[in-house]
């Protein structure tokens, strides 16, 4: 089974790899893992005072699809408001990257990471957490 061109592109040139300061009040951090394959994903967002995501970074230890899913997620997050970011669905990632069924869980992991990061940001800023960070397809 071959990876799609888009997955290969994100894998070879991952966008926004790195870290933001976890202790910064405007930074939300989500670290999630997939027990069945052992992949680990960390995704961070930096939110402006206006509630817009001005920066996003990720680090992923996992397969090409997991790296591509988180790389794509950081690209999509930038410029969105926290509420808009909440609406990102793993199915959109699947569609954009053309992920085969066996790799759908990678996109679920990315969605989980986004939601965990957003909730971490909300918690730091005295806002209630939204939804269940675990979602299934």
């Amino acid at each position, binding site marked *: 089974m071959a990876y799609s061109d888009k997955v290969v592109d994100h894998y070879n040139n991952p966008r926004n790899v790195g870290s933001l300061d976890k202790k910064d009040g405007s930074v939300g951090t989500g*670290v*999630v893992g997939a*027990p*069945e*394959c*052992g*992949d*680990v994903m*960390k995704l961070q967002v930096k939110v402006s005072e206006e509630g817009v995501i001005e920066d996003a970074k990720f680090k992923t*230890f996992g397969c090409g699809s997991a790296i591509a899913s988180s790389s794509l997620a950081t690209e999509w997050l930038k410029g969105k408001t926290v509420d808009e970011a909440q609406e990102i669905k793993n199915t959109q990632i699947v569609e954009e990257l053309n992920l085969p069924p066996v790799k759908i869980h990678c996109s679920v992991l990315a969605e989980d990471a986004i939601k965990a990061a957003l909730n971490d940001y909300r918690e730091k800023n005295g806002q209630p957490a939204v939804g269940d960070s675990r979602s299934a397809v």
Partner: protein
Amino acid sequence: MSGCEADKKTAFSIFDESGEICPIPAETDYFAFFSMPRKMELDEFDLESRYFKLSRKLHPDFFMNAPASKRILSLEASARLNEAYKTLKDPIQRAVYLVELESGKLQENDSTPPADMLEEILEAQEAVVDFKCCEEEEQAESLLRNLEAAKECFEAQRSGQRAALKDLGERWDRAVEAGEPPPAEVVQKLRSILGLRNYIDNILRSVQNALEMAS
């Protein structure tokens, strides 16, 4: 066929009373396949000898002149036998299989990895990547020390988990021997520890691979 039906109710058998190979009922688990109790601890020599015995009976070579339907049954049974043996002979795979057999598939929410564990994994993996691309000797040496420390740390976690699994396995087996279901607390702890195994295995593989490149 009637022989197969009767056997299903008592002990599982691959052959009916006239010695003809039968289809294996879908619900036959790997322990039933070898007529061994559903326990965590298992005599690996006993398993191996049962495996060889069954292999000799089921091998497709012995069905070369049999009707096509029997040849297919022998192929299917042999494939199933190999899978069963591979799963049961490895203590970890056996534990996963048995726990899933008794209490359903392991799921994401079975285990929440300790807060720092995932971060430690990401850090170790970063050191692996840096080490692989590093061209400066001094930095490489410091990264190498980091990797060795990471290896030690994850290996310690793994042996801690193995020890816990052994202990829980013994409690499981005692319940089974007493004819009782395994205590819920034991099942839940087993599920939680088994859910972490892939994280540790993956990062150790990656770190070891980098260390091998260095030596």
